[in-house]
C-alpha cells in the first residue's frame, strides 16, 4: 500500500512567480518525512504539489517530475482527481464537513465519490478508520452527532480518519498540530508513529522538536534571500540532521541562530 515518492528537478510557479526552485529528493515508503524551514520558504507549496492540491490556486503550475510508484503525477494523461485519491491530505486547521455527522464525515470520501456499499461494509470502514485515528473510543457512542461538535484535537483526528478511510498510499500533513494544544498534539504524534507502518507520511511542521520526535528523515527548506525562490537546502536522516548537519545554514536554523 505505502509507496515511495521521487521528486526530481521540480520548480513550482504561481503565475510568473517562481516560488520553489530545483527540488530533488526521495521520500521513502513507510516512513515519516518532515519538512522544516522558516515561513514562506515553500514547504507547504512542495507538500501541496505532491497531490496536485496547489492547482486549486489559479495560475499555479509545476515543472519537473514527481513520480509515485513509477507513475509521473504530472504526466498529461493523469487526472488530478485520481492523484488525490491516492495521496490523502490533512490540513492545518481541522475542517470536518459541518453538515455531516461524525459517521458521515469519516465515510465522506467514499460517499462523495458515490461508491456503493452496504451498511455493514460502511460500518466496518468507519470503525476501522476511527480506530486507526485513535478516536473510536471517544466517539463510538455518538457517531450520529455533528463532527463540528468535537474538540479541536478530536476534529483533527476525525480529519485523519476521513483521510485514511479512502485508503490512500501516501498521507500528507500540513502543520497538523499548529492549531492544537500540547495534549492533542501528543495524541496526533503518537498516531503518526502508528500510521507509519501502513502509510508513507510527509509532514510540514514549524516545531523542530516535533520534527525530531516523529520523523525518520527531514528536509530543510530556506530562501536564498528575500524575494528569491525557496529551495531544499538539505535532505538527510533526522538523526544526522539534528546532530551533525551537512550545511551550516541548517545548523544555524536548528540551533536557533538564524540569519
Amino acid at each position, binding site marked *: 500500500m505505502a509507496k515511495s515518492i521521487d521528486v526530481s528537478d521540480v520548480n513550482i510557479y504561481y503565475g510568473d512567480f517562481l516560488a520553489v526552485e530545483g527540488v530533488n529528493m526521495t521520500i521513502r515508503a513507510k516512513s515519516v518525512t518532515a519538512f522544516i524551514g522558516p515561513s514562506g520558504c515553500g514547504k507547504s507549496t512542495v507538500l501541496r504539489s505532491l497531490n496536485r492540491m496547489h492547482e*486549486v490556486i489559479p495560475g499555479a503550475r509545476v515543472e519537473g517530475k514527481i513520480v509515485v510508484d513509477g507513475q509521473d503525477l504530472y504526466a498529461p494523461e493523469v487526472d488530478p482527481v485520481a492523484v*488525490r485519491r*491516492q495521496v490523502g491530505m490533512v*490540513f492545518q486547521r481541522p475542517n470536518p*464537513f459541518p*453538515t455531516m455527522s461524525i459517521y458521515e464525515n469519516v465515510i465522506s470520501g467514499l460517499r*462523495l465519490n458515490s461508491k456503493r456499499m452496504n451498511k455493514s461494509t460502511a460500518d466496518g470502514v468507519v470503525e476501522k478508520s476511527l480506530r486507526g485515528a485513535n478516536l473510536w473510543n471517544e466517539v463510538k457512542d455518538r457517531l450520529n452527532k*455533528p463532527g463540528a*461538535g468535537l474538540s479541536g484535537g478530536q476534529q483533527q483526528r476525525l480529519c485523519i480518519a*476521513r483521510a485514511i478511510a479512502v485508503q490512500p498510499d501516501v498521507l500528507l500533513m500540513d502543520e497538523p498540530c499548529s492549531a492544537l494544544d500540547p495534549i492533542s498534539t501528543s495524541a496526533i504524534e503518537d498516531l503518526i508513529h502508528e500510521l507509519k507502518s501502513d502509510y508513507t507520511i510527509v509532514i510540514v511542521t514549524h516545531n523542530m522538536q516535533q520534527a525530531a520526535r516523529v520523523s525518520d528523515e527531514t528536509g530543510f527548506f530556506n530562501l536564498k534571500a528575500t524575494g528569491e525562490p525557496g529551495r531544499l537546502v538539505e535532505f538527510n536522516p533526522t538523526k544526522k540532521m539534528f546532530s551533525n548537519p551537512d550545511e551550516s545554514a541548517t545548523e544555524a536554523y536548528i540551533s536557533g541562530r538564524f540569519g
Partner: protein
Amino acid sequence: MSDHDDLSGPDLATSSSGVPVDVLDGDIVGPRPGDTGGQGRLPRMAAALIGVGAVAVAGLLWLLGLGLLPAVLLGYVAFLVAFPVWSLAVENRRKATDRLVTVLVWTAFALAMIPLGSLIWTVVRRGAPAISVGFLTDDLSGRALIEGTGGIAMALAGTVLVTVIAAIIAIPIGVLTAVWLVEYGKGSRLATVITFLVDVMTGIPSIVAGLFAFAFFQVVLGAPLPRLAVGGGVALALLMIPTVVRAVEEMLKLVPDDLREASYALGVPKWRTIVKVVLPTAVAGIVTGVTLAIARVAGETAPLLLIVGTAYTTNWNPFDGAVSTLPTFIYGSLNRTGGQYGAAWTDAVWGAALVLIVIVMALNVVARVIGSVFAPKTK
C-alpha cells in the same frame, strides 16, 4: 496548578472587595449626599421618572392652550435635555453622553416604527371585517355575486400562479449563475462583467420589466395585446433573478475554502464538491434568500398591470387569458370605490391588502424557520 490557585485566591478576594458595590435600589433618587466625584449612578427608574415629568410638561403646555404637536415636541425636548443633565450632575461626562446618544437612537427607532405600526394597524382594522370564508373562496363572477358575497379567490389563485411561474424561471437561473460566479468564474473578466450586469438589473424599474414581457409576448404570439400569466411570470422573474443571484452569491462566498480543499483532497471532483459539500453547507442561507426574493416579487403591481390584465373569474391556464393578482386587483378596484357599490369595493380593497401583507409576512417567517432548520448544527 495548586500553587497558582493559592496565589490567585486572596488576590481575587481583595479585588472584589475593592470594587464599589452598585446601588440599584429604586428608592434612592437623585444625587446621594456627599457624592460629588462622578462616582454615582442614576437609579434604574430614572428614564421612567423623567419620562413621566416630560409627559406632565407636555400635558401642562397643552392645557395652557398650546397646540398638541408643539406641546409634544417641547415635552420631548425637555426629556432630551433633562436626562443627560441629570446624568452629568450625578454620574460623569462619559455616561451623560452615552445617555444622550441612547435617547437619540431610540428616537430614530421609534420614528422609523411609526409608519409601519400605523400601516399595519390601519390595514388590520379596516381589512379584518372584510375577511370571511366567502371572501377567500368566491370570485367576482356574476354567479358568485348573486349567490354569495363575492371575493378575491381569482386574485389569490393568480398571485400563486404568477409567483410560482416566476420562481420556476428565476431560481434555477439565479442559483446556477451564482454558482458559476463563485466557483468557476472567480476573478475572470466575464465574471466581472456579469456581476456588473446583475447590479444593473437590480436597478431596473419594475415597469420596464413589464414592458419587456409585454413586447416579448407581442412578438412571440403575434397578438396586439397579450394577456397571459406566463407573461407576468417572466416579468417578475426578471426582477427576481438579480436578487437571487446576489443572495446566493453572498452565501456561497461564506463557505470556507477549507471545506472545498478537504473535499478535493479526498479525490472528489469539483462538480461533486459543489453539489455535495458547498451547496448543502450554504443551503440555509440560499433558501432564506430565495424565499425573501419570492416575497419581494409577490407584491409587485406595475409590471403585471401591463401583461396579465384583470379578470373577475379564476383562470388557472397560464398560457391564455387574463388573470387577476392581489396587487392588480387592489389597483383595479380603487377606481370603483366611489360608485353605487363603493363601500363594498372599499372593503374588498382593504381585505385584499390585508391578505397580501399576511402572505408576504408568512413567506418571511417561513424563510426564517427554514434558515434555522437547515443551519449546520454543532450539538
